[in-house]
């Protein structure tokens, strides 16, 4: 049996048990709820991702422990 036939057969089977959603109309305005959520949980200030901090830490460590690498770094900047 092909995939399409398989799907068709299962579709028919499912239709007999689970009808497509009929009530898809939103019955009320959700903006008041949205506004409450916005007031309760102000959007966080966008932070610096952890991997940027990790990269900065690694770079700092390299500069501290291998100061000879500073000219090479400056050359490549």
């Amino acid at each position: 049996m092909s995939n399409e036939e398989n799907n068709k057969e299962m579709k028919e089977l499912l239709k007999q048990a689970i009808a497509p959603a009929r009530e898809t109309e939103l019955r009320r305005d959700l903006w008041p709820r949205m506004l409450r959520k916005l007031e309760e949980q102000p959007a966080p200030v966008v932070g610096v991702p952890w991997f940027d901090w990790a990269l900065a830490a690694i770079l700092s460590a390299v500069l501290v422990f291998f100061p000879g690498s500073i000219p090479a770094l400056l050359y490549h900047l």
Partner: protein
Amino acid sequence: MELLERFAAGDLEAFEALFRAHQKEVYAWVVRIVRDSGVAEDLTVETFWRIYKSRARFDPAGNFRAWARRIATNAALDHLRHSRRETELPEDLASVGTADPAVRREAREQIRKAFSELPAKYRLVATLSLIEEEPYMNIAEAAGISVALVKVRVFRAVRMLRKKLNSLGVQVNAI
């Protein structure tokens, strides 16, 4: 400044205008996935909350509708993941208004049970493709995956359902 630009810049009035313009569409999409009106309302608000939080990453030249649908799909998927064990398909949405009378009630319940036990990502595509008959392309766009992957997931969902139903004693071909 255009509405989407104002929204991306953090203008609350622009966000409200977008919310009012798209809430019905987002709800209609989500309720087809989660099949519960109360949960769908919560997820609609959650979707717009995520949209609002991510506004700085939105490209005003982009398609807000498609972006909102993708975020809504992710929110619905998260819900399916966390509530898979407890979720039963509610009667009002899942009942069979046009059911074949020959199908036994018990068999229908077994089918609903097997379906509700599918892993979330398979249940998502199976609901949209097999029950709601949404085109593969739309599912792929909403889920952020390729059409080929949607087809693979539908195929696997069908295989899992068949296996589950057989283990529950429901003969797929006999119904």
